[in-house]
Each structure stands twice: as structure tokens, then as C-alpha cells.
């Protein structure tokens, strides 16, 4: 299949950046990243600078592959990361616009790579459990209600990719933060630190300069792990409780 790609090229965080057009010949069995590899090989042969983009696992678990494809973070297929998106989702002759995540908190480093350090700092502010919780058998030794376990697991599926921020018209990171808060707060090992965790992760999220949630729902629609905004509601409840009640449990 013959494709026209319009890719965001930006030398560094200070440069202005613009879309550049490329022709690429791909097979429909390729993943989107493989198609980008083909294009990069082509550019190297032409002695042009290859397009910088983040990738690592290429199996939908690391959250690196940040690309906004035709306006959609991670492209048109719902519940799928860019690395797992296949070219068969496109038609021969298509024009595809590829851009980095757009958020003033995620500055572009080069081309399609952005600095998602803000997410790391949110995790550092409370996205952990302070005590040693042992090995897998120890985890299994604690009985946890099925509903709670499933709900915490759904939240734990978040891969920290940042598509929610890119999708949000307000540049809000509430879905990411809520997924982490909701994952840890619901389990007995994490509940102990619930109050402090919620307050400090929200404070860090605000400090980074992310926007405020207007309950638009674009994050939930674009999230490759289909994290529900129900977790945002839980975080809000627990945040209000953490401020007013200082609830310990």
C-alpha cells in the first residue's frame, strides 16, 4: 500500500516545528511502528535525518509509543497502542497525519518524542507502597473481594502513556492520576497510605500544570487500556475526604 505521511518534524524543544510530507510503501501486515521504521530506513538512505519517536516493548505494555495519528492519540483503533495498530486499519492511498502528544506539560524533545517526566514525578509523589509486601504468594494469601480486585486491576492496566493528556481538550492528567490512585487505594496493601497518597499525587499533578477535568470523556475514549472515568470520580471522592476528614482508613 502507498501512503502519504505528514509527520511533525521539530529539531528540539525550542524550534518551531512543522508537518513534512513523505511517501511510503508499506504492507498491511506491518504495525504502525514498523511502517515508521520503513520510512526511517528510506530517510537514512536519502541521507536525511530519521524521525525520532519513542518505542520500547512494541507489545502494548510499556506506554512509550506516543503518536497522535489523524488527531487521535494511538490512532483510530480503540483500546490499542500505536505499536499494536496495524496498517490494515488504513487504505491504500491514505494521507496520515502523525503528531506528538500536544500538552504544554509534555514539551517536545525532538519530532514525535515528548518529555513525560511530569508523570514520573506524580508517581514519585505517592504512586507506591512504602512497606515490603512480599512475593506473589504473600499477595495471594490476603483475601480480597472479587469486585475490588477486578476494579483495582482495571485501574492497574494503565501504562502511563499520556494519551489521556493528549486527548483532553484541557490537557488534564486526571485519568492517569486517578488510575494510579484508584489502583493502589483499593487494595489492602495500599489503603494504609490512601489519604496521604491521594492528597500528594493530586498536589503534584496540579504543580506540574496539568489542566482541570471538565468531564468531557475524550481521555476514556482514547485510552489504549480503556481506563474508565469512574476512577476519576473515586479519586475526587477520596481527595475531598483526604482534605476534610483526614480519613486514615
Amino acid at each position, binding site marked *: 500500500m502507498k501512503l502519504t505521511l505528514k509527520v*511533525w518534524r521539530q529539531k528540539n524543544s525550542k524550534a518551531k516545528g512543522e*508537518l513534512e510530507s513523505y511517501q511510503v510503501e508499506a504492507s498491511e501486515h506491518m504495525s504502525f511502528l514498523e511502517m515508521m521504521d520503513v520510512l526511517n530506513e528510506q530517510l537514512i538512505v536519502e541521507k536525511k535525518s530519521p524521525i525520532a519517536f519513542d518505542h520500547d516493548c512494541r507489545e502494548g505494555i510499556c506506554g512509550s509509543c506516543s503518536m*497522535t495519528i*489523524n*488527531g*487521535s492519540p494511538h490512532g483510530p483503533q480503540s483500546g490499542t497502542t500505536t505499536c499494536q495498530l496495524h496498517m490494515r486499519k488504513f487504505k491504500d492511498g491514505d494521507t496520515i*497525519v502523525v*503528531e506528538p502528544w*500536544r*500538552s*504544554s*506539560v509534555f514539551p517536545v524533545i525532538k519530532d514525535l518524542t515528548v518529555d513525560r517526566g511530569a508523570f514520573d514525578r506524580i508517581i514519585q509523589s505517592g504512586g507506591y507502597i512504602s512497606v515490603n509486601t512480599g512475593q506473589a504468594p504473600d499477595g495471594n494469601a490476603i483475601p480480597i473481594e472479587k469486585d475490588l480486585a477486578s476494579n483495582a486491576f482495571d485501574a492497574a492496566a494503565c501504562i502511563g502513556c499520556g494519551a489521556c493528556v*493528549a*486527548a*483532553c*481538550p*484541557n*490537557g*488534564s492528567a*486526571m485519568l492517569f492520576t486517578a488510575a494510579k490512585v484508584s489502583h493502589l487505594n483499593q487494595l489492602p496493601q495500599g489503603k494504609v497510605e490512601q489519604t496521604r497518597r491521594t492528597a500528594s499525587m*493530586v*498536589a503534584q*499533578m*496540579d504543580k506540574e*500544570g*496539568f*489542566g*482541570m*477535568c*471538565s*468531564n*468531557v*470523556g*475524550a481521555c476514556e*475514549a*482514547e485510552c489504549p487500556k480503556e481506563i474508565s*472515568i*469512574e476512577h*476519576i*470520580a*473515586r*479519586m*475526587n*471522592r*477520596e*481527595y*475531598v475526604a483526604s*482534605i*476534610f476528614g483526614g480519613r486514615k482508613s
Partner: protein
Amino acid sequence: MSWITSFFSSSIGRKVIMSLTGLFLITFLIVHLIGNLQLIAGDGGEAFNQYAYFMTTNPLIKFVSIGLYAMIVLHAYQGLVIYFKNKSAKGGKPTAKNKADVKWASKNMALLGTLILFFLIVHMGDFWFKMKFTDTIPLVTYDGWEPIKNLYQQVTITFDNPLFVVSYVFSMVVLGFHLWHGFGSGFQTLGLNHSKYNGLIDGIGKFLAIVLPIGYAIIPLYYYFVMR
């Protein structure tokens, strides 16, 4: 006291204020509509004028209305702060448009709210200000009453102007869109999200978003086209 300041300046705190003030304003809209429907009762304004007299003189209502003004100011102020903060957080928009299936109103709450704010200023200038702070409204006497202000007449004079009728109806459409997203959004902000009740909350929100604006818009339309 630091928890108060940290709450009010936090993202979630700001949103909780939006939600509480917004939901309170919706209860006000319901009460206000029931009162206003007396305008088209066809009794020459007797019931409405007596109601307006009660609403402007009763000490409890006076107290509640101060709260109401504060709510409007707080909601509008906080809404605009949120809008500008979000705009700077977003930075650039993608060149290609995001096609996620979301409510149009949800992305345009500040625009819709600002239009409502303009309407409120004009509206309060026309009726509330004249009623409370001027003597331009003529008096009328009913059996067993001291003379009271004939607000009904003031309303009909205003409604005689077709431009006013059009802008009033337009503002109600705007309000409808604001509520279409706002009602359900307010609950989600407060953390009241449960798969069992979401449908109900959304349903009530959509019902109010249609019925309240239509209820309000009927008054000038009915007066202009039927009663005049």
C-alpha cells in the same frame, strides 16, 4: 486554615466549587421557573405581582438571594479561571481534529457560560435592578393590599420588543446546552458515579436541559404571540 486555601486552589477543589454552585443554580432555575409561569396565568399579573412582592421583601428569601448572587459570581469567576488555566495547560492543539465522540457542550462550557452571564446581566438590569433600586415601575393596588410595584407590566413592556424575545429564546437554547453537559458533569465531579445510577443522572440532566429552557422560553413566546 491551610487546608481551606489548598482545597480552594487545587484542581479538584475548584471543580467541586463549580459543581456545587452549578447544581445549586439549577435548583434555583426550577423554583424561578415555577414563579415565572404565573406571568402567563392570564389574571392580568395579580398572582405574579404578589409573588414578586413576597420574593423581594421576605427576609428569608432576601437572605437566600444573597447566597444566590454569591453562587453566580463564584461559579462564573471559577469557570473563567478554569478556562484560562486549561487553555495554557493544553498549549497547542493537534493539527488534525480529534474525532472522539464527546458532547459538543462539554468542550464549550466557558463560551456557553459567558453567554449566560451576558444574559444574566441584561436580565437583572431589566427587572431585578429596576424592581429593587428604582421607582420607575408603576404601582398597582389589589383588594386587601397596600399598593405594590407592577412588575408584570414592566415584563410585558420588555416582551413587546421582538428583539428581546429573540435574544431571550436564544439564551435559553444556550442554557439548555450548558445544562445538557453540566448536570451530569456536576455529579461526576463530586465523585457520584455509579454504573447503576449514571443512566438515571444523565436522564434527569437531559430532561432538565430540555424542559427548563422550554419552560422559560414559552413565557415571552406565549405573551408575544398569544396574549398581546
